[in-house]
Every structure is written in C-alpha cells, then in structure tokens.
C-alpha cells in the first residue's frame, strides 16, 4: 500500500485503482502466469510476477522491499555479472533465445546498442510527463532515442576522486588535486614518498573511465542528426586526454591493471594504490571491495574530479537504467516496479541502506533520502553526497552514446591491452574510430564524413 502513499505517481495510482478489488480476493498461486496482456494484474487476484536481471549494489534489498510492500506485482530478481563482465552477453543471448527477463538494468552507454538490437521495448506510452519531469534532464536525454522513451534512469553518475587521506598526507599533500596538472604532481609526490605507491590505475579492460574523461574534456563522440551519424572519437578534446594518460602510463605514475581485478583489489588492500577515479556509485563499491580488509575504514575521502582549468567539470561514468525487454507482456508491471525503484524514497533507502551502494539518484528529490541512508564511517564521516551534488551540476550536457558501443569498447580495449607491449592509447582511439564507422556502415546506416 505504500506505493500509493506518495503523491503524483500517476502510473501507480492507475495500477492501484485497477487492483483495488483484486486485492481482496484470496491469492491463489505464486507462479506468474498472469501476463496475458499489457495490462496490470489479472482480475483473478493473482499478482503479476515479473522477472528482473541486474547487478547494481543493493538491488536485492530494493526487490525485497518492493515485494514486501506490493501485492499486485511481485519481482523475481536474478543477480547477473556486471555488463562488461558478461552481463550484456547474457542479456543479448537470452533476448535472442526468447527468454529475456521482463526488465533489466543496462548502463546508459549500452542502451542504444540494445535498442538497436531490438532487445528493448518502447515505453513512451507508459511514461507520463510528470514522471519524466522528476529525473535530471541529462538522464532523460540519454534514455530518449529517436524521440521515443526506452528506459527509466536509476542514477546519474557524476565523477569523483576517491583517495586515501593518510597516504596523501604522508606524501605531503594537504588538499586533493583540483586540476590534472596537480593530479600529476601529486602522483609524483606519492611515488617519491613510497616507490610502491601509485595515485591510480589506468583500466585497460574497461574504456568507460576514459570515455567519461573525454566527456569531461568536452568531446562529443557521437552525434545523430536526422538519419546520419557523425563519429568524432578521435577529436582534439579526446586527444588532450589521450596524451595526458599516455604520459602518466609512460612515466609509471599510474598502474595498468584490469578494473576490479584481483590485482587492483590486492593493491588497494595493501595501500599500494592510493586513489581511484570513479563516480558516485564507486563510493559503495569501494567500501564493499575493502569491507574485509582490516583498518581500511575511515581512511578514505572523496573529492571532486580534477579538471583541466580548475573549474568544476564532469562526465558521467556508468549509471544505469531500467529497460523493459522487447517481448515482455508485462511492460506495465515492469514500469511500475522501475518507477518505484527510481523515484520513491522507500526504493532508494532500501538500496542505500544495504551499505554497499552510494549511487546518485537520477531523481534529485531523493538525494536527501540517499544521504540519510548512507553510512559514511568508511569515509571518516565525510558528507560525500554534497560532493556528488556539486559534481552532478557540472556534468557537461549534450553527450550522446552511439548504437555500436559494444564494438567501440571492444576495439578500444583490445588495443589498450597491448599498452605494455608497444600499444598506445592513441592507436586504441584510432581503432575505435575506424571500427565504429565500419560497423555503422555495415548495418546500413549513414555516416557523415
């Protein structure tokens, strides 16, 4: 019943009305065969059971809270590996085989790919203007493709710098770096203080950090105008990022290790990596990654991500949406669940209170709830959400993801993987540019030259 408590949720109220009589009837079976049509619960009183795949931290808690407070819709949650770690392949596979879940999480970057594959359902008709107005405009922009609404945004992912205060202090650094020049200088200081310490990591297996840094620098990799794509992966803005990180790698000021790998986790545990360039959600991930490490807690702090000119600027690193799969016959129930998970204080509290998530809600009204629910002991009691709020205001508008990100990312990381053996970041960028254009053409799409 808590669902109808919050005002202004038209979709919910509609569903509630439809089920009002149904609720009094005895619940019969648990198995969800009620998906006969697009409509909400069948009139025989059985709840609609939808299946849901995701991997974001705290998702299980959200589902439990939803199931406990809803009788008309029940969610069957399955945890899958994160997108780049095989989750996307799994969703594609299931989608082709006709057994995709009703609703699943994807990152903004992957959404156009899934829409282009025909794996996602157009939910424009199920999303009211009121609902849309709740989310950050950047997030709505990224879920609107070819004028249709394809997903509901869960979180915005403003970038942030996570760092070990104690290690920075030992190296004589008193404030977090504000510019990339300072970041580089601090990297040198940290290494000088302890030859085994690096300021951060270049992730060769996952280009999303590099993409967010290019976004921050003002690049626009994809632009779709009318029916033509232009691809500017190797633009001059990207080049400044490329050259900077190439130099950091060449001077051995950052480690080159796969993201969230054994090596990376081990080097964080041992204090050999002193900082992490992440996004808001990284706060919870970092905390749970180091949960079993004694004496890690309380030493970390969060700062805005450094910028080129010292003025706040951010891209978006990751960030997830709820998409309804093409063949789901329970789109309405799926949207009801996604709406609850992304726009109600209960939904966000359940996630953050799990202690493992620090995501930044795409619905700004929920930020106070998120802030109140997050236990900041790991960050020495710092108010990390106010850092994220500032950062979110500096997210550069106008970024678009292309429909070939799976291929673009693969092209880039295949060359990133050769960084130790003579490969360069620039050659990865070039490979991505060429591979992307070739793939767009192969799909029969127009590409501006």
């Amino acid at each position, binding site marked *: 019943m808590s669902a109808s408590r919050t005002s202004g949720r038209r979709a919910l109220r509609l569903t509630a009305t439809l089920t009002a009589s149904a609720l009094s009837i005895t619940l019969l079976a648990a198995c969800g065969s009620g998906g006969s049509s697009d409509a909400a619960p069948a009139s025989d009183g059985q709840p609609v059971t939808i299946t849901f795949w995701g991997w974001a931290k705290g998702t299980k808690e959200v589902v439990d809270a939803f199931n406990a407070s809803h009788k008309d819709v029940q969610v069957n949650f399955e945890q899958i590996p994160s997108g780049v*770690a095989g989750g*996307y*392949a799994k969703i*594609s*596979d299931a989608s*082709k085989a006709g057994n995709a879940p009703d609703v699943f999480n994807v990152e903004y970057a992957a959404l*156009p790919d899934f*829409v*282009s*594959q*025909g794996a996602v359902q157009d939910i424009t008709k199920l999303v009211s203007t009121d609902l849309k107005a709740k989310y950050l405009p950047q997030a709505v922009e990224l879920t609107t*493709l*070819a004028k*249709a609404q394809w997903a509901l945004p869960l979180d915005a992912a403003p970038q942030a710098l996570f760092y070990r205060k104690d290690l920075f202090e030992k190296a004589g650094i008193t404030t977090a770096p504000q510019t990339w020049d300072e970041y580089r200088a601090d990297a040198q200081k940290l290494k000088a203080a302890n030859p085994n310490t690096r300021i951060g990591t270049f992730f*060769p*297996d996952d280009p999303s950090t590099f993409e967010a840094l290019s976004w921050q620098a003002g690049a626009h990799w994809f632009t*779709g105008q009318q*029916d033509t*794509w232009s691809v500017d992966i190797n633009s001059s803005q990207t080049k400044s990022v490329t050259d900077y990180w190439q130099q950091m790698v060449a001077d051995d000021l950052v480690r*080159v290790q*796969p993201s969230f*790998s*054994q*090596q990376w986790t*081990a*080097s964080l545990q*041992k204090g050999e990596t002193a900082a992490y360039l992440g996004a808001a959600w990284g706060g919870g991930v970092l905390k749970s990654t180091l949960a079993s490490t004694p004496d890690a807690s309380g030493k970390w702090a969060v700062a805005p991500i450094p910028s080129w000119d010292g003025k706040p600027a951010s891209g978006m690193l990751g960030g997830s949406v709820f998409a309804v799969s093409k063949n789901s016959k329970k789109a309405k129930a799926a949207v009801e669940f996604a709406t609850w998970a992304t726009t109600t204080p209960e939904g966000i509290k359940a996630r953050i209170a799990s202690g493992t998530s620090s995501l930044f809600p795409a619905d700004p009204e929920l930020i106070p709830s998120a802030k109140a629910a997050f236990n900041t002991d790991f960050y020495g009691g710092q108010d990390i959400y106010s850092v994220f709020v500032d950062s979110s205001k500096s997210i550069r508008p106008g970024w678009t993801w292309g*429909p070939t990100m*799976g*291929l673009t990312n*693969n092209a880039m*990381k*295949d060359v*990133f*993987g*050769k*960084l*130790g*053996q003579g490969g360069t970041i620039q050659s990865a960028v070039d490979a991505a540019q060429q591979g992307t254009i070739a*793939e*767009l053409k*192969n*799909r*029969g*799409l127009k590409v501006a030259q």
Partner: protein
Amino acid sequence: MTDRTTGTTGPSRAATVRRRGRGGAPALLLAPFFVLFTAATLVPIGYAVYLSLFTERRSGLGFGAPETVFTGLANYGRALGDPAYRDGYLTIAQYCLLYIPVMVCLSLAVALLLDSVLARAKRFFQLALFLPHAVPGIIAALVWTYLYTPGISPVLDALSGAGAQLDVLGHPLPAVVNMAVWEWTGYNMIIFFAALQAVPREVLEAAVVDGAGALRTAFSIKVPLIKASIAMVGLFTVIGSLQLFTEPVILRGASPGVTSTWTPNMYAYTAAFERNDYGLAAAASVLLALAAALLSYVVTRATRGRSARRTEATR
C-alpha cells in the same frame, strides 16, 4: 574438450566372424548414433552455412526494426578481411610453435624416464602426472591465473624474493601455453609410455649387447620406434589447438593482452554475443570448421601413410 589423440588406424584384425546383417539389426544399432550425429554435427554446420549468407540492415539512426538481407559471401569477405580474425589464426600458429615442441618433448622425456629400469614407483608417478587432466580447463585456468598474479602468487613471490621478476600476465601466449602443457603432458605421456612398453624386448637387448648406453638406447632406438605415436600426438594437438577458448577467456580477466578476438573461436563468440552479428559469427565458425577439416585431412593422410609403413615393418 577431449583431445582425440588416438585413432591412427581402423581395427586391423577382426576377431569375429563377419556376418550379413539380418532383420535390420545393424541399422537398428547404428541408428541412434547417426541420428544424433546428423542432428548435432551435420545439420548445425548446414544451418551455419545458410545463416552466413545473410546480414541485418537498419535504417535511420539504427533504432528501428532490422531487416535481413541476402548478402552472399560478403560475411566471409568481412571475416577474412578483418585483421582481428586473421590475427586469431596467427595466435594459434604461434601457440602451436611454442606449445607442441615443449609439450611433446616433456611428455616424451617423462615417458622415457618412466620406461627406464631405474625409475621407481612408476604407478605413483603415472597417476600424479596424469592428474591435471582430471581438472576441468576452466578450473585449471582459474588456479594458474592466481599463480600468475604478482602479489597473490606464492610462486612469483618466492621468485621475486630470489631476485627474479617474472611478468607472466604481460605475456599471455606463454601463460596459456603453460596451462596447456600442465593439462596435457601427463595425458600424452601415457600414450608414449604405452608405446614404449610395446617395443619388443629383443630389440633392446640387442642394443645392450652392442654396448649402447641407456641414453643412446633411448634416443637412437626407442624414440625412432615410436615415431608414429609422436607424429600422431603432434598433429592431433594442432587440431585441439584450433579450439583454444576456455583458458584465454579466463586469463583475460587478469591479462588484458588477451583481446576479445584472440583466437578464432573467441572471434566467433564475440561476433555472436557482443556484436550480435550472427551472419559474421556463422561465417567465422564455418571457416574454422573448414580449417579443421583441412587439417584433419592432412592428419589422416599423414598418419595413414605412416601406420601402413609401420604395419609393413613389424610383419
């Protein structure tokens, strides 16, 4: 993944009196196998060939429904024209060049050692050496990945304590070769050992009478006598190598030098599941099966020739 290492000749002598099939008994006995064989081998290949002739095309910005068009051999052109696909075969070739000599020499050496009168506890050694073969490839790869990771591996820590820094993860090829050597040496050693046991004792005694030492007997008498087994193991290993998939896929999590298209199998997998390009995936698989068929032909030719000669010699 079984390595079909045996299989040089058909059964050479029939111990039974052959009889004409009556009442359809042979057909009945053969049917289950051939029905399944057709369903799981011939039909999939045919279907893959069919799929490889089509490509999905889209319009606008690419968010509408795709349309499937017949593109003839274009997918084959794309696969063969893609340096990433060709590099996959190059990887396999380099892998074979490193893996086969190392593995064959090691398993042969161990078999010779075990065959020597000096060896003790033969049964124990055979079992201990064969055990890695009982470990699923994915688990072997997981364990070795731990043992390759600096700061986690006790082996690398011990080595770096002794002053030797080994960057295994930076060199995926030898890293994968080592996993394969570990998994297959014992297996092939058993084949060599069995072949050595079958060497007629008179030949060896004659060598001793001639005053040949143990080493000379091993290299100039025993090894030439089991040449057919060695050739067979080598060639079948090439065919097994074309299938390389599990080990690099696991290693990839720790060693980004392993690309998404590192082997032809990985290329096909990536095309199907990450690019959703079924036509390309089908073409890549068909080409791989063709390459395997070609190699198989060479294998059967080569081994048939050899074993025929060997049969002549022993008669």
